[in-house]
């Protein structure tokens, strides 16, 4: 879901359920950003004039009741709309009669604007100036609109009937969770998340030529090359094979930024996210086509405008590679490869080719642009190639910039992960690396998965550095920036996974320590 700029319009369709033709369109329009006013035009579809003509149909004449279903036009959003009178027509506070509903499903009243949008935030900020309009019908069948100042709604939730069950869940308008997009990627707000699963709409994105629109009915995956029997699988075929569900992280190998104190975890390493994926093991499909003895690599190709390609050793394809079609319980999101993508757990994100359309088995790598010109890194005067695995890493996500903390007990929290297996331990230092303590690992500890850690710390109010480092089951300990620089003779590039240190200032402000130490 995209949030458009403040000036842009949002439209929602208000549709009366049960009624055959009456459609009401609610246009949410921000008329003037400065005045922080929202104007909603309720317009009857058939009517030509801009007129508020709400037709309410009494479902059951004997009951005092309104049956309005708010339905979002188009897909992908929340069922929610703030209905407000056209500007100028100041709403009169009206005593709202008690609602009685036939059945919850058929009921509806207006509720605050979609979560997180500028509109809803402004609505909240505007306080008394804005109001929620509800459609009310008297026993005589006469419809009128009733407005309640929003502040009043929030003042005492026990005094106002809340919205009935809806078709899609919403995020509280108080929660402002956003990815951070650039031209080529979009970052997960790690500092705002709890636990280890990334909500699907906050999963990081990296694409090379935009997000393609793919018709799932036309989707096909071709497997050919050094196989006994080249085959085509439709999406429905993929879904009929024995399925596997697993949780793992996916991380872009270009996931390190530093250079100033005011960087959040999202900005430093927000190109990592975690999902429960469901799909078919690639080995299951390879078993159908029959792999020829000499095959040792395969090409994975996407159907985006970059026709993204990577060469993958067949051993990975036969190990834990999957073709996944579901993400956190629903179809994979378009940004993550709808309707199906390759998933290579623990490997650099680019190799998990999205929107996969073709797999070609071969006896050698294809040397595509993404494994030569890109996704290779300088190491001691050479360029390291096919560096697939993501090394172990951790980051404290609380307290972290932009958080401000108070003296006393603080639970330091963060995530740790390794592309080589499970996290064995996470160590935390609250004295700038002089001493290290074991953090509590909050299970489950999964293979190649973001793993939560916690460390209880009593802060005495003095300035200090807090640091974490991950140790994985191979015995690898997350290095410092200096260690990486010394080992590679290079101060950056792909696969840079250094320890991140946070400065806790005396006033409680937490800042990134940008020293390349």
């Amino acid at each position, binding site marked *: 879901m995209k949030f458009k700029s403040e000036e842009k319009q949002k439209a929602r369709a208000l549709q009366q359920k049960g009624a055959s033709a009456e459609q009401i369109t609610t246009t949410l329009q921000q008329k003037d950003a400065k005045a922080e006013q929202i104007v909603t035009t309720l317009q009857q579809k058939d009517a030509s004039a801009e007129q508020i003509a709400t037709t309410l149909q009494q479902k059951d004449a004997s009951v005092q009741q309104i049956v309005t279903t708010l339905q979002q036009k188009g897909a992908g959003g929340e069922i929610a709309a703030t209905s407000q009178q056209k500007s100028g027509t100041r709403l009169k506070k009206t005593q709202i009669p008690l609602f009685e509903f036939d059945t919850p499903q058929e009921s509806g009243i207006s509720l605050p604007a979609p979560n997180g949008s500028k509109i809803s935030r402004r609505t909240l900020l505007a306080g008394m100036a804005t109001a929620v309009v509800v459609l009310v019908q008297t026993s005589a069948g006469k419809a009128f609109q009733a407005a309640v100042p929003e502040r009043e709604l929030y003042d005492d939730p026990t005094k106002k009937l809340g919205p009935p069950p809806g078709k899609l869940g919403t995020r509280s308008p108080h929660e402002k969770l956003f990815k951070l997009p650039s031209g080529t990627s979009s970052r997960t707000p790690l500092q705002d998340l709890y636990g280890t699963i990334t909500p699907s709409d906050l999963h990081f994105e990296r694409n090379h030529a935009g997000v393609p629109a793919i018709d799932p009915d036309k989707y096909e995956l071709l497997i050919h090359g050094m196989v006994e029997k080249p*085959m*085509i699988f*439709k999406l429905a075929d993929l879904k009929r094979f024995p399925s596997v569900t697993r949780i793992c992280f996916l991380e872009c190998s270009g996931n390190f930024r530093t250079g100033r104190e005011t960087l959040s975890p999202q900005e430093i390493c927000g190109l990592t996210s975690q999902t429960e994926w469901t799909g078919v093991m690639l080995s299951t499909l390879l078993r159908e086509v029959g792999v020829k003895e000499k095959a040792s690599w395969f090409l994975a190709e996407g159907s985006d405008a970059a026709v993204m390609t990577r060469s993958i050793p067949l*051993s*990975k394809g*036969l190990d834990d590679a999957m073709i996944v079609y579901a993400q956190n319980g629903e179809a994979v999101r378009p940004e993550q490869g709808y309707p199906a993508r390759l998933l290579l757990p623990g490997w650099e994100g680019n190799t998990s080719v999205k929107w996969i359309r073709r797999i070609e088995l071969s006896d050698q790598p294809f040397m595509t*642009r993404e494994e*030569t010109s890109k996704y290779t890194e300088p190491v001691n005067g050479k360029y390291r190639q096919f*560096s697939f695995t993501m090394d172990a890493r951790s980051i404290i996500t609380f307290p972290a910039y932009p958080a401000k903390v108070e003296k006393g007990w603080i639970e330091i929290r963060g995530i740790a992960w390794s592309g080589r297996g499970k996290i064995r331990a996470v160590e935390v230092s609250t004295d700038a690396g002089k001493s290290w303590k074991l953090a509590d690992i909050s299970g489950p500890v999964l293979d190649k998965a973001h793993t939560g850690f916690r460390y209880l710390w009593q802060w005495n109010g003095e300035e200090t550095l807090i640091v974490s480092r991950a140790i994985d089951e191979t015995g690898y300990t997350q290095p410092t920036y200096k260690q990486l620089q010394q080992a590679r003779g290079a101060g950056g590039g792909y696969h840079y996974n250094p320890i991140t240190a946070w400065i806790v200032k005396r006033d409680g402000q937490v800042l990134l320590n940008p020293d390349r130490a």
Partner: protein
Amino acid sequence: MSYRSRLKYGIFPAIITAVFILQGFSGKDQQFSRNIFNSLSPQDTIKKKVRWPGSFGLGRSAGQKYIDSLDIDVRPDGQGLPPGAGTVKQGQAIYLAKCLVCHTGKSSRGRASAAESPGPALITDSLSGARVKTIGNYWPYASTVYDYINRAMPYNAPGSLSPDEVYSLTAYLLYANKIIPADAVMNAKTLPRVKMPAEKMFVPDDRTGGAVIR
């Protein structure tokens, strides 16, 4: 043994494993599938000892025509190159018309701003000293130039170039990067023979986990 043939014959431990596994499956299909299943299927399925059929009978076999319509990749050994040819001169003309608008950056002067040049610089003169890593100093195989332009460029109209155009553009870019002479002609025979200066710069990943930082 060249770097590429080392890759091919499996110097990586991962590849050795793959080859080893595959060579275990001699002969019969049935045995092949059982081995794959026993050693490589998801663990939960193994635990349950589910008996899988030889084939699930899903999907359909792919005809050559269908395969050819999608199989656009080009390998360093030239496999996948289509018939056709192009010269440096032709390539330069196409480059001016279709590419320069986005690829204005001259490597020696560093990277242009995104507004000036949405695409990266494509031309550089030498292996050392150049600030921009591109075809002349960073790309290990000439086939990649053909493959990438063919699949992804021009950025605003991917897949719109004919084989002759792609051969010409490849010729021009290789020439501009001082790799081939001005009179060179690129086709399915000549392109795989072009040696790229950067090939010797590439080494395979040697990180293995454990205590060593690499």
